[in-house]
Every structure is written in structure tokens, then in C-alpha cells.
């Protein structure tokens, strides 16, 4: 299958390894991966902050960058939710842009969603092994695209993974984009609760698929002195398939 990757700004700059892992897995699965060089940002930060004129310009750019009929895969559930659910509201019903954005939303998938719903990947059919103690945080925008415990199920399918359930796994970590900067006291309180739940699992690695939440949780663990590494599921899988060299938790 021809797959176009959309790598949003935070993943691009802060967690590029998660995107590299996705490229290697998709190629391992036999797909033809393309990354349009003109892509930038879907406009989610502007949309969520209420800057809808600016957000609309960026979404309209996206429509040109990802024009066509190729399947688009992105590591970010929140960017996928923006395109699928929120971006259409920026255009009047019946306009060509509205149709194009709805079309894009219909062929754009978050990576785990793609593995489960499109690829229907059966891990048992692959030689995959990853030894370690893992817990999983559910990024809120998984909710927005109808995901539930898919990442947990996939993790359970990897030999060697010891999965420790996270209390309040689906409670927000306090990221919320500009929320983390605008309401630091509230956001910080939410984050400390998340970090203490993670610490209580005894896991060495917390799997988190959204780059923003991953930065927040990693920063919270580091500030608290909790020795937990934050990884995306794609990185765990790529390491398990020996497509990426395992990074030992430091």
C-alpha cells in the first residue's frame, strides 16, 4: 500500500525516533512510505486556543500537501482527531474544502489505529520479542478517534513484555497544549498524580503514543526523579522486530 506519513511538529522536533520507528515498521510490512517535504502543522494548537482564522489557513495547506487518495498515517491521535472531527467545522457545508477535509479525515489514521483497523496486524505471525516491565498511558485524543485499549492489547501480544496496569490510565496527564503553560498549577497537579500512578506500577517504561503527552510525562518523571522512560508503542514494536536498536533505559 502507498502510505503518506504526516509527522506533526512535536514528534518531528522532540520525539523523531517514534516517527523513524513508524517508517521502519510500515516498510517492514511491505508498504511504500512517502513523506511530503512541504508538510508543517495541522493547525491544532491554533484551533484549540481559539485562533480559528489561523487554524483554517494551516488546515487548508494540509489539504494541498496531502491531496490525492493515499492513506495517511500519523503518530498523533490529537492531530488525527483535529482533521477528522474539528477541521470540517471551519468550512461551510457543501464547499469543496469541506469535502476535501472530510475526504482527508476518512483516510487519515493514527498509527496504532492503522495497525489495528487497516493493517489488522497479527503480532503472533511475526517474530517479535521485547523484554521489560511496561505500563501504558492512554492519551486523551485516543478518545476523540474512538480508540480504547488497542495499545494494551498489542503490548500483550509481544513476547517478553510484562505489562503493568496503570491506575487511572485514561485520566489526562495535564498536557492539553497551551493549557500546560497557561494553567501550570492545575496542569502540574494533574501531572504529579499521573507520575505517582506510573511510579506505583514499578514499570521501567511507560508507553505513550502522543508526543505532547509524552513530553509532559517525561518532564514530570524527570522533575520528580522517577526513573521511567517514555516510549511510543511504535518504538517498542520496532525494537521488538529488531528494526531499531534497543535503547536501554538509562
Amino acid at each position, binding site marked *: 500500500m502507498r502510505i503518506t506519513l504526516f509527522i506533526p511538529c512535536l514528534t*518531528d522536533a522532540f520525539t*523523531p525516533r517514534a516517527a523513524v520507528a513508524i517508517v521502519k515498521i510500515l516498510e517492514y510490512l511491505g508498504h511504500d512510505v512517502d513523506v511530503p*517535504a512541504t508538510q508543517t502543522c495541522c493547525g491544532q494548537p491554533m484551533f484549540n486556543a481559539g485562533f480559528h482564522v489561523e487554524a483554517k*489557513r494551516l488546515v487548508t495547506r494540509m489539504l494541498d500537501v496531502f491531496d490525492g487518495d493515499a492513506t495517511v498515517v500519523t503518530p498523533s491521535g490529537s492531530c488525527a482527531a483535529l482533521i477528522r472531527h474539528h477541521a470540517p467545522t471551519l468550512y461551510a457545508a457543501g464547499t469543496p474544502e469541506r469535502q476535501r477535509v472530510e475526504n482527508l479525515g476518512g483516510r487519515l489514521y493514527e498509527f496504532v489505529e492503522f495497525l489495528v483497523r487497516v493493517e489488522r496486524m497479527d503480532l503472533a505471525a511475526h517474530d517479535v520479542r521485547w523484554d521489560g516491565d511496561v505500563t501504558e498511558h492512554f492519551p486523551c485524543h485516543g478518545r476523540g478517534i474512538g480508540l480504547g485499549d488497542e495499545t494494551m492489547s498489542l503490548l500483550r501480544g509481544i513476547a517478553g513484555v510484562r505489562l503493568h496496569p496503570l491506575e487511572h490510565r485514561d485520566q489526562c496527564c495535564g498536557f492539553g497544549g497551551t*493549557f500546560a503553560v497557561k494553567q501550570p498549577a492545575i496542569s502540574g*497537579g494533574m501531572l504529579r498524580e499521573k507520575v505517582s500512578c506510573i511510579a506505583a506500577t514499578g514499570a521501567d517504561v511507560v508507553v505513550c503514543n502522543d508526543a505532547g503527552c509524552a*513530553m509532559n510525562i*517525561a*518532564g514530570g518523571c524527570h522533575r520528580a526523579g522517577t526513573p521511567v522512560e517514555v516510549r511510543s508503542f511504535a518504538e517498542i514494536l520496532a525494537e521488538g522486530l529488531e528494526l531499531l536498536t534497543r535503547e536501554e533505559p538509562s
Partner: protein
Amino acid sequence: MSGGPLDPPLPHRIASRAGAAGRDVQLQQFVNRATDIRDHARVEALDAAFGSRTEAVRTLAGQIKQHTLDHLDHYVGQFADAATAAGVHVHFAADGPAANEICLAIARRRGCRRCVKSKSMVTEETKLVPALQAAGIEAVETDLGEFIIQLDDDAPSHIVAPMIHKDRRAVGRAFEREIGAPYTEDPAELTAIARAHMRVQYQRADLGVSGANFLVAETGTVVICTNEGNADLSVSGPPVHIAFVGIEKLVPRLQDLPVFLKLLARSATAQPITIYTTMLTGPRRAADHDGPEEMHVILVDNGRTRLLAPDTRELLRCIRCGACLNTCPVYRKVGGGHAYGAVYSGPIGATITPLLAGLENYPDLPHASSLCGACFDACPVRIDLPGQLVRRRREMVETRVTGLLERSLMRAWAWSLRGPRRYRMATRLQRVGLRALGRAGWIRRAPPPLAGWTRERDLPVPARRSFHDWWKKRERGGRP
């Protein structure tokens, strides 16, 4: 006039109370535990009753309410006609003072001196109790939680559980101090004290005030749901009953009621149905043993017709179950401290308060959310609360309530994303700048606008090489 936790100086800044609430470990524990238990119990109760049909039931409830609001003029008229035919005096109040004045006029005419009042958020909006007291009418809250709040001269901090921020020790102290009861921490004894005290109030009262959970348009029926039976005692003993009801409480027909009774009790307290569900159609009839001689319904607008605008109409579907509060991670952190500074707290409060009282007066509330979406999932009438909060933010930008600095920063950021060259340049600048600030991969103190971030957590520095740079190099070098 300002004063009291729900009536703060304006503009209200949430940080003025959120910090204190966040540091109060005991308060955090009460609120966290109480909301967490309720949230889990809600999910289980809905699942046990409706299973895979839960979504369909919530959608149905939302549609019934939406339909009613789409034709509100019709249903208000139908209710008024049916209730009048049943012997109810129906009044219309444009705002809080008008509603209170209608109540006071009735009380004056009937010579009422002592009022027993059951729980009603609308009377919190209109500040009825202080208005009654100012007119020389003694007013007692009969809902146990509200009664304790009243004794402590405090304010409710949750739509359904007004004293979610207090524990039984605080209750024991209030009873000892205010009604002379021997100190106890035993919930059963505390309830018995309140019950004995309250019975006397019911017997002495000459005015009963209630709210209502629903109004049935076709029959003119007022529906009140409680778990303590206090509303029944408040409105059936005294000769006069006055119900304060927001105009959004209407449902068209009696047959529309069950879905709401089922959803309300499960969403609020995980019960199959509230202990008491009282349907009042008119005052006492000749053959009745009890009931008021006079029954009044005051239909209160107080900003609601403004919310009928198409963009915000869905907010009026709210049945005040409190599920969005219980599930909200922000409410759990700050809710017990009256941080929302208004009658309605949590996600629903964060979006309706700025509409009712002005965005400029509550500029933090639309931003007091990570947009995690838990409230949208919990809402029994499917109000898109995160979407509504984003709309408030948009209105803040459009009306320039959002400051110049923030508008400039966001617009500069957006500009830098409008082409691949600018984007690469900005990403590189960000990488060089942040890596210079960092030590061993982390930044402990960042300058504005990232200072808020590093106040609470460390900031990882960007990776040495961005994904797009990796990809470009790989493409140039050819695939292995």
C-alpha cells in the same frame, strides 16, 4: 455586590483559588476520592442498565432535549397552559432579582415568616436565601448537604454533592456549634441530629420553596428528584409552594420522562432511580391529605434565552447531573476550593459561566481544561463540552479578551508554520535555542512563554536531528 465564594471580585482569576486548593492535601483527598468513586460507579451503573445501548440512550435523551429547546416557545406555552389548568400560578422571571421579587411578593401577601427550601441550583443563581433573610423571612436549607453549607456560611462546591469539600468532622463541629448537638463523627448519629432538627423546621414552616428537575409540558407537572425526601416535606406541609425552575427543564410529554429519570440517577449517583421521584401537578385537591393550598412555578430565564443561540443551544440540554464534574481531572484538582468562582463548576460551569456573566469577567474558565474529552464521554445528553470550551476561546480571541501578547505570539507561531522553509527555519532556531538552555538533555527553567511549563516539570530539549532532516538525508543517500 460581590462577596462569598460564588460571587468573587471580577474579573475572576482561577489561579487565585486553584493554587490553594491544589496544596490542600486533605481537600484533594476528599474531592479525588468522592469524584473517582462516583465516576466509576456511574460507568458501571449505565453499563449494567443499558450495556451496548448506552450511547443510543444518551443520544435519545440529547435529542429529546434538543427538540424541546428547538421549540421552546411552544413547550413553555403548553406547560404554562397545562399547569394553570391544574391550578398552578405560573410566573415568568427575566432574571434573578425578578424571580426573587415574585417569591417575596407572594410571601408578603400570605404573611409567610418561615421558609423551608429544598435543593435548587436556580435559587443559588438568584441568591434567594439572602433575599428572603433580608426581607425578614427565616430560610432553612433542608437538603442535608446544603443545610451544612448554610450552617457553615459556606457555598456549594458541586452541583449534586454541595459539600463534597467537607468531611464528617466538619459536619460534627457545625452541628455542635450551630444547633447545640453533642459532637459526634458517626454518620448515622449526624443524620439523626439533622433529621430531628429538620422535623421541627418543617412543622413550623409556612412557605416551601423547591427547584425542579423536569417540567412536563403536556401535563403541567413539576418533577423533583431527591434522595432525602426533603423536597416532599418542604412542599407538602406549608400552605404555599413556590418552585424556581429554569426554562430549560422542560420535556414534552410524560412518556419522555423515564429516559431522563434513568439517566439522571445513574449519571449523578449511580442509582437506578432517585429514592424519591415526586410529580406535582397542581396544589392540594379536595380529597388530598396534604399538599399546599397555593402552588407557584416561577420560570426563570436569567440569561438562558441568550444561550438559545444556535451555537450554544446544546448547553441548555444539561440536566445538572454532575457527571462532567466527577470525571473532570481539572475539577478534581480545584473543584473543592470554589475555584470556578460561580454557581456552576466543572466543565459545564467553565463554559456557561462566561456566557452568562461575560467572557471578560471569567477569562480563565474557558482555558481551565486540557480538552481531554472525559466530560463529553460522561455527559448523559451528549453536550460537546470540549467543543464549547474551544468556542469560548474563539470568542475571546475575536473580542480581544485574549491579550495582545498572546495574540501576537500565536499569530507569529502560525505564520512560521505556513510554509516548509519557515517551518524548517523555526524548528532549527527552536532546536539551537532550547539545546543551549538545556543541560544533559533537560531544561529546568525556561524563559516565557515556556516558563509555565518549567514551573511544574522539566522540558526535554529537541532531538539532535529532526525527523524531517533524517528523512531527507535518507532519501538523498538512497534506501539501504
